């Protein structure tokens, strides 16, 4: 207690108190006076009495100093002095301080932004109750994330380790508000979804287990907060309102809180509908009772005290029995538990690799900035050698000098940190509101939180220490005697060594080389993904999508409509080819199905193989420009009643039918379904993502296998946006009430799969540019400093007959050696760090000699340019003027 009290009083004592100082003086004065009186009474003359009193008291000023130390906290007093001194120093040279703060602010801002992204997509838990107890149940199969509904139901009922296990699925719906149908993406979610997550409604109620029992009998909707605000203007009496989804009435029973935006990091649902409405939401594709359709994401909350290991063991016991009971659809079934939010770990690992790689490169930028500032500071430190020598000679300790210098750099880096955080804040706010140019409501919420703030703070302190410590140490080793005696003393001792600032230039060049190499390699990677064969020719193709089931069409009317639409579009001017299908390669809604050999030869092959399925109309391959390698395309004769046929890609032929000539071979979609004959083989393409390995794909005839989900594709000689408008017009004439979606060019659709590379290339270009600027200013600063410093020397050399080339060799030669050394080190580093880069950018290869050579040339060029101005200045030195100056 007493020490706390003393500490508080001492803290109060920090504030300068002239009054308290006066009081102390008076007290000491009174003390001395009494002693003098006393001495006089003892018979001393006044002079002697005074002398004795002062002698007995000891040094008055020392006493005051000790008293003041006791009154405040010495460390704080010193800090206050240092800060005040630093501010004066900055005031004398505001340009320098500004350059340091701006440079560092950019570098820290880049880091804060990159960390903000990592934080938001990797670290930040879902906004639910005890998120650490919620796990995602993932099948133990490469790139598979979903389950069949019957499997989910059995797993939910038979496991003993989960408090609750829920299923969900993202699904597009036609939501009609005030007679205006709109495509909105939402979740189909099992009844226990909200209860297991522990989310409470903002308005009304959520649906529960009991609401979600009978198929088709749960017409309820829960709206997301932003959908409620946007579509219903935040109407507080929304609960009980009837809205139409896919033309059927649903009751809005509640609104989710603003903080809860579903269970996937990148997806922002507009509404939630009970799972039992699946057949009504995904019209024409009921799968709730189909054990072979894996469409459901499953996650759950572990019971208290159950470890993930126990739960994994438990769900795998269930998986084992499900595999025995339903061998045809569950053979080899097993599960693992992963962190929810990024579709288990299927998105997590690439996203993690990407963002962490980005953060590492951002850290590199910060390092370059630190090296840059350290070299500038070291040069400046040499200038301050006299100042420091004077301070040392009047009694400052070296520790105190280092402390003073570090206070200066830490002040600069803190200011830069604050500015950098601001930059990151503004940039991430802008990025967060950005929507992908697609229908799917994406979510990219990277608003910085406390975590990001702490990171930024730590980064700026670390930066201050890094770029301040080395020069501070160097400066504080100044030999006060030598410095004060000679005009050029500080550098005298170091003339034959490589001074720190020179080494730092080489470091900067090396790091800059790495970043620029990363930037150029990734740009090449991007260029390759842009020009990479995707298996079709997107240029000149337009698309428009519609869902006939939602439009109230039954099968026969739907088929008739598809035909009429195709004919109408074919009549439009400029159309070369037109076709329709249920989906397009690389579009967001890819599905997966299993195929089986015609004759199950043995147990090993009786398990189905996953393939990407499409149902397409005649003319589809011509329209997309997909080459037919063998056999024929889907044609108008492949209709209901005719033999079932399919076209497969080369990978399908090779991997599943084990032949290069698959025409005439047959396979099945179910072990007991009728066989389907392969009539043609097409070239491979990309189906789910640009980065996938070759996938088997199958194209069936949509005229034999009706699908109400329709995408019209049109290849035309008119520009795509005009074409899209014309198609829209033609379709509206046929049915004005039919909602259209995904209208645009195919190139536009490809923006999504190309996004990761584009983002990486943008970020890396920014980093690379920053690195070049930093390296250039760093080299320039050091050369300019060297020239300014050696004016006299150069003047003398010129006076005794040095030629221009001698002077240039003197000024630039050393720098050229440094830049070359840095570039070589950078080349080595770039090759070493290559694997990191390939994680960030698909197709980026770390060993492209042309690119590396180009980077080397670029770095040398930048070094040359940076040296240019100071070198020219050195040539203009007039010996007479230079020598007179000192």
């Amino acid at each position, binding site marked *: 207690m*007493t020490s706390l009290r003393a500490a508080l009083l001492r803290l109060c004592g920090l504030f300068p108190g002239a009054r308290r100082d006066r009081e102390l003086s008076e*007290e000491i004065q009174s003390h001395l006076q009494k002693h003098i009186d006393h001495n006089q009474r003892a018979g001393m003359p006044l002079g002697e009495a005074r002398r004795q009193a002062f002698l007995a008291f000891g040094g008055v000023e020392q006493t005051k100093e000790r008293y003041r130390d006791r009154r405040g906290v010495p460390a704080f007093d010193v800090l206050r002095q240092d800060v005040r001194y630093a501010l004066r120093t900055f005031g004398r040279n505001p340009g320098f301080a500004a350059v340091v703060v701006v440079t560092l602010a950019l570098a820290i801002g880049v880091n804060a932004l990159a960390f903000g992204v990592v934080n938001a997509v990797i670290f930040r838990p879902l906004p639910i109750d005890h998120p650490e107890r919620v796990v995602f149940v993932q099948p133990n199969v490469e790139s598979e994330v979903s389950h069949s509904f019957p499997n989910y139901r059995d797993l939910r009922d038979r496991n003993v380790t989960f408090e609750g296990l829920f299923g969900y699925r993202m699904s597009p719906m036609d939501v009609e508000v005030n007679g205006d149908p709109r495509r909105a993406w939402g979740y189909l979610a099992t009844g226990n979804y909200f209860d297991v997550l522990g989310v409470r409604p903002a308005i009304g109620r959520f649906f529960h287990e009991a609401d979600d029992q009978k198929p088709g009998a749960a017409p309820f909707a829960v709206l997301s907060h932003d959908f409620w605000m946007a579509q219903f203007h935040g109407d507080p009496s929304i609960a009980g309102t009837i809205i139409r989804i896919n033309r059927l009435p649903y009751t809005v029973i509640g609104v989710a809180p603003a903080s809860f935006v579903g269970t996937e990091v990148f997806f922002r649902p507009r509404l939630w509908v009970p799972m039992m409405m699946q057949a009504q939401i995904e019209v024409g594709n009921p799968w709730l009772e189909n054990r072979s359709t894996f469409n459901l994401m499953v996650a759950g909350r572990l019971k208290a005290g159950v470890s993930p290991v126990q739960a994994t063991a438990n769900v795998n016991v269930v998986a084992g029995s499900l595999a025995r009971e339903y061998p045809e659809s569950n053979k080899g079934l097993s599960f693992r538990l992963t962190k929810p939010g990024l579709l288990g770990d299927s998105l997590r690992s690439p996203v993690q690799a990407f963002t962490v790689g980005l953060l590492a490169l951002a850290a590199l930028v910060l390092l370059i900035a630190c090296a840059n500032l350290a070299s500038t500071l070291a040069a400046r430190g040499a200038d301050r050698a006299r100042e420091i020598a004077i301070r040392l000679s009047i009694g400052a300790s070296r520790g105190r000098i280092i402390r003073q210098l570090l206070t200066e750099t830490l002040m600069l880096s803190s200011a830069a940190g604050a500015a950098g955080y601001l930059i990151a804040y503004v940039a991430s706010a802008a990025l967060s509101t950005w929507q992908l140019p697609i229908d799917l409501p994406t979510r990219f919420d990277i608003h910085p939180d406390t975590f990001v703030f702490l990171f930024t703070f730590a980064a700026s302190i670390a930066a201050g220490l890094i770029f301040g410590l080395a020069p501070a140490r160097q400066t504080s080793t100044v030999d006060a005697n030598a410095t004060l005696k000679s005009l050029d003393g500080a550098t005298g001792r170091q003339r034959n060594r490589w001074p720190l600032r020179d080494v730092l230039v080489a470091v900067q060049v090396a790091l800059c080389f790495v970043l620029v190499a990363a930037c150029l390699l990734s740009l090449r990677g991007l260029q390759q993904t842009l020009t990479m064969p995707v298996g079709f020719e997107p240029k000149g193709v337009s698309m428009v999508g519609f869902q006939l089931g939602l439009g109230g069409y039954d099968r026969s009317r739907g088929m008739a409509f598809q035909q009429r639409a195709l004919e109408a579009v074919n009549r439009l001017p400029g159309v070369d080819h037109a076709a329709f299908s249920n989906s397009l390669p690389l579009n967001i809604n890819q599905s997966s199905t299993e195929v089986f050999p015609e004759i199950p030869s043995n147990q090993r092959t009786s398990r189905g193989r996953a393939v990407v399925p499409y149902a397409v109309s005649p003319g589809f391959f011509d329209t997309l420009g997909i080459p037919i390698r063998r056999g024929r395309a889907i044609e108008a004769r492949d209709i209901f009643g005719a033999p079932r046929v399919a076209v497969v890609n080369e990978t399908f032929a090779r991997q599943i039918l084990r032949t290069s000539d698959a025409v005439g071979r047959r396979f099945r979609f179910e072990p007991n379904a009728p066989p389907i004959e392969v009539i043609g083989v097409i070239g491979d393409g990309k189906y789910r993502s640009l980065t996938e390995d070759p996938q088997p794909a199958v194209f069936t005839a949509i005229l034999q296998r009706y699908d109400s989900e329709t995408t019209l594709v049109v290849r035309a000689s008119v520009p795509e946006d005009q074409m899209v408008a014309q198609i829209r017009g033609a379709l509206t004439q046929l049915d004005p009430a039919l909602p259209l979606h995904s209208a645009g060019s195919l190139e536009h659709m490809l923006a999504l799969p190309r996004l990761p590379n584009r983002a990486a290339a943008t970020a890396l270009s920014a980093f690379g540019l920053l690195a070049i600027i930093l390296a250039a200013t760093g080299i320039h600063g050091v050369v300019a400093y060297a020239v300014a410093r050696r004016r006299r020397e150069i003047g003398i050399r010129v006076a005794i007959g040095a030629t221009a080339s001698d002077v240039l060799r003197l000024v630039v030669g050393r720098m050229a050696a440094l830049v070359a050394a840095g570039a070589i080190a950078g080349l080595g580093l770039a090759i070493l760090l290559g694997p990191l880069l390939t994680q960030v950018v698909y197709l980026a290869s770390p060993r492209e000699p042309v690119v590396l050579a180009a980077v080397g040339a670029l770095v040398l060029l930048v070094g040359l340019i940076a040296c240019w101005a100071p070198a020219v200045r050195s040539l203009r030195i007039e010996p007479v003027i230079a020598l007179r100056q000192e």
Partner: protein
Amino acid sequence: MGSKTDVWQGTLALMILKTLETMGPQHGYGIARRIEQTSGHKLLVNYGTLYPALLKLEQEGYIKSAWGVSDNNRKAKFYQLTKAGRKQVEREAREWNETTAILAKFLSPDEV
């Protein structure tokens, strides 16, 4: 000399408190004189060292101070014990006695 100063630093606080307990409110010079007299003029250290010690005790709440007028009509700052200070004197005196008693046993020649 060094050892003497160490003793002075370590025990000054107790000496001040004890002095104030015996003599009542007292100014700095008075405290210094009294300590010197009590020690039989064996402790000869600068009076100036007294003031930071007084400040420390005041911060810790064992003494309080107020300006007053001394016997010869001069303005002076008077220090006096607080309630906490009285307890502290007792406690420290007891601890000191125990310590010295133990040390005495070690140092007394008739032991062994």
